[in-house]
């Protein structure tokens, strides 16, 4: 359960003050699938960072469950990210020197999971995204879709409460996009995740339970379109 109250985020970029989020009030119940849309520079990624405990707002409150993210220190935020939040990025963001399996394992390292269990859980996660054959491959040896599958496995191996995806299909072709979306939706359905997806793609957004539009740092609710 997310509860955002008067969340404002400003950046000081070369003398100009940019308001990326402007008094956002928002509440997202557990298990909801939300699509966030809006023009470029509207503040979508900034909102996702607030939700994902990557950054604190300039003012206002961000609450996830019982944790007041806007008041926690760096160490506590890192712990929350490690336990409760999974991220998927547009650019996959795999560690280029690590194999697919090792990339997935990085998510379990801060949780103090033992080596053997870490490996087993990571293998299971890769198998669940259809990459059983690719454990030892480096990211450069995988296709874009396969890399994003590895990233999804990395995000989900910790069994988080929330999955945040910032344009997860933005770098993929249409067929692959559908595969990845189906994969994310199936996890959302099966695991009771809260799934928040930033997307430019209306076809993707249409599949969400709820759609938000953000422009100039202001969030507006879009009426759910009939499926």
């Amino acid at each position, binding site marked *: 359960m997310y509860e955002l109250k008067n969340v404002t985020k400003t950046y000081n970029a070369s003398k100009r003050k940019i308001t990326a989020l402007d008094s956002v009030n928002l509440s997202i119940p557990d298990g909801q699938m939300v699509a966030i849309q809006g023009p470029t520079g509207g503040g979508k*990624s900034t909102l996702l*960072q607030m939700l*994902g405990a*990557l*950054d604190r707002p300039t003012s206002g409150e961000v609450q996830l469950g019982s944790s007041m993210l806007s008041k926690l220190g*760096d*160490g506590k935020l*890192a*712990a929350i*990210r*490690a*336990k409760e*939040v999974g*991220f998927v*990025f547009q*650019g996959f*963001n*795999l*560690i*280029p*020197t*690590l194999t697919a399996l*090792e990339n997935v*394992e*990085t*998510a379990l*390292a*801060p*949780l103090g999971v033992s080596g053997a269990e*870490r490996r087993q859980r990571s293998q299971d996660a890769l198998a669940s995204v259809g990459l059983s054959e690719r454990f030892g491959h480096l990211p450069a040896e995988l296709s874009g879709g396969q890399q994003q599958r590895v990233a999804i496995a*990395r995000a989900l191996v*910790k069994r988080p409460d929330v999955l945040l995806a910032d344009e997860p299909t933005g770098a993929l072709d249409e067929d692959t996009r559908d595969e990845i979306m189906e994969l994310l939706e199936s996890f959302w359905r099966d695991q009771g995740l809260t799934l928040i997806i930033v997307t430019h793609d209306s076809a993707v957004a249409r599949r969400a339970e709820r759609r938000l539009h953000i422009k100039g740092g202001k969030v507006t609710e879009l009426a759910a379109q009939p499926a």
Partner: protein
Amino acid sequence: MFGTYLRRELVNRRKQTVIISIGMALAIGLVILVNSISAGVQGAQASVLQSVYGVGTDITISQAAVAPTAGAAPGAFAFGSGSGATAGGTTTLNQSTLTTSRTETVFDATQLDTVSATSGVSAATATLSLTNMTFSGQLPSQATGTSGTTGGAGGAVGGQAGSSTTQTAPTGGPDGAGGSSFSVDNFTVLGLDPTGASVGPLSAVTLASGRLLTAADVGTDNAVLDSSYATSASLATGGTISIGGTTFTIVGTVSSSGSDSVTASDVYIPLDVAQTLSSNVGKISNIYVTASSSSGVDQLATSLKSALPTATVSTQADLASTVSGSLSTASSLVSNLGTWLSILVLAAAFLIAILFTISGVTRRTREFGTLKAVGWSNRRIVSQVAGESVVQGLIGGAIGIVVGLVGVLVVNIIAPTLSGSAAATSAATGPGGGGAGGGFGAAAKAVASTTVTLQAPVTLGIILIAVGLAVLGGLLAGAIGGWRAARLRPAEALRSVG
């Protein structure tokens, strides 16, 4: 995870690993080489001093030279009217004097007792440094050739040029033309206590033939010769040598390890005989002291200085500063150029490691941002970066040790020879020293030189220092790189294009 990630980074970012490691390797290798050569030069200096001042000598004591008074001018020959044998207008002279070496000043032998009684002295022995000067040759007789009228008598016998002209050419002398022919022969004589050879000059020599002086030689006219002097003077064991007009039996020859050390002398005779012959009864010129503990040398030198206020007390360390020649050039080269070069290369290597680590961290901004998003704490990221740098440093250190050892091996194979000279501390050139008789180039050896081969040793300590420096360089680079990585805000890091 730490180990896997570390290994993958080092292997997959091989270029950075290689550059940092090579920089570190060069620096570490140089540090080892310079350290080792410096130790070798110190060793060479010690061995020069040893050959100059004798094995086991920690402290030498002498007396500062004072300007000799005119009357006491050493080495003055006194040729009375009756001296020599005059025959046919030619006087043949053969006179030898045994005097104190011009560079030495004698002092009372009781000072040896003072030294021996000082606590911290393990052994002490006294010597008397002398020079024997033999004048041999022929001079024209006093009257010969001074006037033409008396020229005939001498000329008839001594030369063919004799005539009865009024303006007679000088006649007489060995060439019959009123000239003279003579030679002055010098050699150094060292009076020493034949009973104690554990410290002092004879401790640094090896027996070449015959025997050394023993307690039984006290008061006898027995001499031991330096083998190279014996050869040049065509003398041998069993023969005799005239010292100060007294005939000595040569009982043995020795070769000194240093070619011309201060303590090495041409001739060694019992101290008491030397004192009597040179009219220096109860006098000595040098005392050689062994301290009972090597760490107590400085303390002992201080107590000796207060016990003997007029004496010059020199320790090995004082003496080391007197070593000159290519050895001292090498020493200053190593201590100046070598040290600065090592520091420079080390600083450059550290800088390279730091800059490459920083640039690596910058390049991996998005990677670290991702890891932070995944939940990695700053501490985990810092230790990852630091770990990579330390391992790179260690790889460099390991290669550097090999490089350094190869360098040391090369030096030891080439084995450069260095010559070192040690100016005798007692060789004070007093203002009157040169002008006051003695003459005939009788200057005693004030400078002793010796040649040593440079051997660069490698100690465990040097290796440990090298490893320590490698770790330090890695830690430094890792700390700075890690700090940069920790400072990255995860949101910003993810934004960076990479």
